[in-house]
C-alpha cells in the first residue's frame, strides 16, 4: 500500500488520501484499506466511503477522535498486505436500439467509427466500480476503451430516463433515476441496480467488475417485465 496523507474533516471524519491524481496503485490502496477497515473496524467507526484516490472514515466524536483513528489506520496499513480483492463479476444487460441511444450516432461521428463499432467497443470494455456518487446506486465504472472516449457535452440534457447507459471520457454509468446528464447516452439497461433485497440493496459494491451484455428489444421487454413481477 502507498503511504497516505491524513486530513481531519470537521469533528467527525478523517480523509485518508493515497495520491492526488488517479492511478491504479492509489485505487488499489483505497480498496485494500476499505477491506481492512471492514474486517477490523476501529472503535467509533460509523461508515467508510471509498473514492478514486482516497477514502473517508466517518466516526462518532464521542467514541474516537482524528488522532486515534489515524493511529488505527496506520496499524492496519502495517499489517501484512492481503491479496487485493478482485471484486465480484456482475453483468449488466443493455439494448442499443436507436430510441434508447440518442447519442450513439454523435459518438460514432466524433470517434470516426460506425455505430456497430462503437457498440462492439463498449461491449469489449472491462469495467470496474470505482465509486458511487451523485445519486443512490449511481456507480462510476472506469474502463471505457480509448477508441470510444468522448468528452462531456457542453450542456446537460434534462429528464434522461433511469436505466440509461452513459459514457464520458474513460467512465461509464447506468442511471438509477430520471435526471439531467451531460454524458453521451448510448443505450438502455433493464438491469435493476437498486434492488428490493434488503441484504443486498445495490447490485454492485466498489471494486466489482462489470461486463455489458447486448440484448435486443424483445430481451429488454422480457427483462423489464421480470423486474416488475
Amino acid at each position, binding site marked *: 500500500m502507498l503511504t497516505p496523507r491524513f486530513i481531519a474533516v470537521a469533528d467527525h471524519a478523517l480523509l485518508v488520501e493515497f495520491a492526488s491524481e488517479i492511478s491504479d496503485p492509489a485505487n488499489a490502496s483505497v480498496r485494500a484499506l476499505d477491506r481492512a477497515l471492514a474486517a477490523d473496524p476501529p472503535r467509533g467507526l460509523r461508515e467508510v466511503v471509498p*473514492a478514486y484516490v482516497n477514502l473517508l472514515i*466517518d466516526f462518532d*466524536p464521542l467514541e474516537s477522535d482524528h488522532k486515534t483513528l489515524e493511529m488505527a489506520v496506520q496499524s492496519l496499513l502495517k499489517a501484512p498486505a492481503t491479496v487485493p480483492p478482485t471484486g465480484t463479476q456482475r453483468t449488466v444487460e443493455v439494448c442499443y436500439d436507436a430510441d434508447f441511444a440518442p447519442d450513439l450516432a454523435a459518438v460514432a461521428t466524433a470517434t470516426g467509427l460506425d455505430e456497430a463499432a462503437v457498440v462492439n467497443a463498449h461491449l469489449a470494455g472491462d469495467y470496474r466500480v470505482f465509486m458511487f456518487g451523485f445519486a443512490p446506486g449511481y456507480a462510476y465504472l472506469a474502463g471505457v476503451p480509448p477508441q470510444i472516449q468522448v468528452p462531456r457535452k457542453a450542456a446537460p440534457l434534462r429528464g434522461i430516463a433511469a436505466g440509461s447507459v452513459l459514457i464520458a471520457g474513460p467512465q461509464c454509468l447506468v442511471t438509477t433515476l430520471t435526471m439531467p446528464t451531460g454524458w453521451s447516452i448510448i443505450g438502455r439497461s433493464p438491469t435493476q441496480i437498486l434492488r428490493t433485497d434488503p441484504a443486498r440493496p445495490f447490485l454492485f*459494491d466498489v471494486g466489482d467488475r462489470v461486463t455489458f451484455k447486448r440484448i435486443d428489444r424483445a430481451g429488454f421487454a422480457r427483462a423489464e417485465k421480470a423486474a416488475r413481477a
Partner: protein
Amino acid sequence: MTEARFRVIATGPHVSVQDAGRFGQMRFGVPASGPMDRTAHAIANRAVARPPEAAGIEVSRGGLVLECLSGAVSLAVTGGGFIVESGEARAGSWVRTTIRAGQRLTIRPGHWGSWAYLAFAGALVSPHWLGHAATHSMSGLGGGKLTVGQEILVTGARLLGDEAKIPCPVFARPLHRVHVVMGPQDRFFDSATQARFLHEPFSLTDAYDRMGVRLKGPPLMPVGALSIPSEPILRGSVQVAGDGVATILLADHQTTGGYPKIATILSADLDRLVQLRPRDRLRFCAVSAAEAVARARLHAARIRPYFSAIGPR
C-alpha cells in the same frame, strides 16, 4: 389499536417524512437524509415520549395544513419559530398540543427559522427504503414528500394531557457564526482567499433546499483545482465551484464530487445554521480538529440534561 387519521389540505414544497436518518449507505451514493435540524427533530419526539429516531414530518417555510379525519392524538412542534394553529388554539412552535377529529392543524412560518418538526404521540405510518422512513428528496425514496389530498395514519395514538410549552434551548436556536475545520481541500485556496473566507460576512441565498444552500459573499477563487478526482463529500462541506461561489452541502448531499471543499462545518453548528433564512448573515470561524471534537463532546453533554428534563412525566 387507537388510530388517528389525517388528510393533507395544503403543503409547501420540501415538506417530507423524516426519521433520524439512513446511515451507513454513503458508499452506495446514499446520504443519510433525515431532518435538516436533527436536534429539533429529536426534541419533538422526546416531547411526545417517542424514541429520538422516530419518523415525523419536516415542515418547510411553505407550511402545512392537516385535517384530522378521525381519532385524536397529541403532537409536538419544534424547530424554527413557526405558528401552530390546532383547532381553535393558536400558539408558537415549541409546543405540545392535541388534535381531534374535525379539527385542522396549521403550521406556518413565524418570525424565524426555516424548518419545523411535527412529531405525533404514536407511530406515523409511511413507506420505508433501506429500513428507514427518511426521505431522500432527489429520488423521493423513503417516507416521501407530502402531497395535497394524501392521507396520513398514526397508529398507537396517545393523548398526553393539556397543551404545554416546550422550552427552546439555546443550542436549538439559529447561529450566525459557525465553526469549521479548514479543508479537506483548503490547499486549493491562497492565503488571501482563506482569510476572506474567515473574516468577511456571507449570507444565505434563495438557492436553499435539502441538498444544500448557496451562499452570497466574497468570491473564493480556487487555484488549480479543476482536475481533482471526485472524492467523498459530507453534510457540512463548504464546496466552492469554479466561479468562486460557495455552497454548504446539507442533509441530501451528493456523496462524492470533484469541487474543492474549503472547510467543513461542525455537526452541532449545522443544525443551527439550517434555521437561518435566505439573506441572513453568516460568518465562519476556524477551529482545530481537536477543538472540534471537544465541542462535539461539550454539545452532547449539554443536550443530555435537557433531554431528561423535558417530556411527559
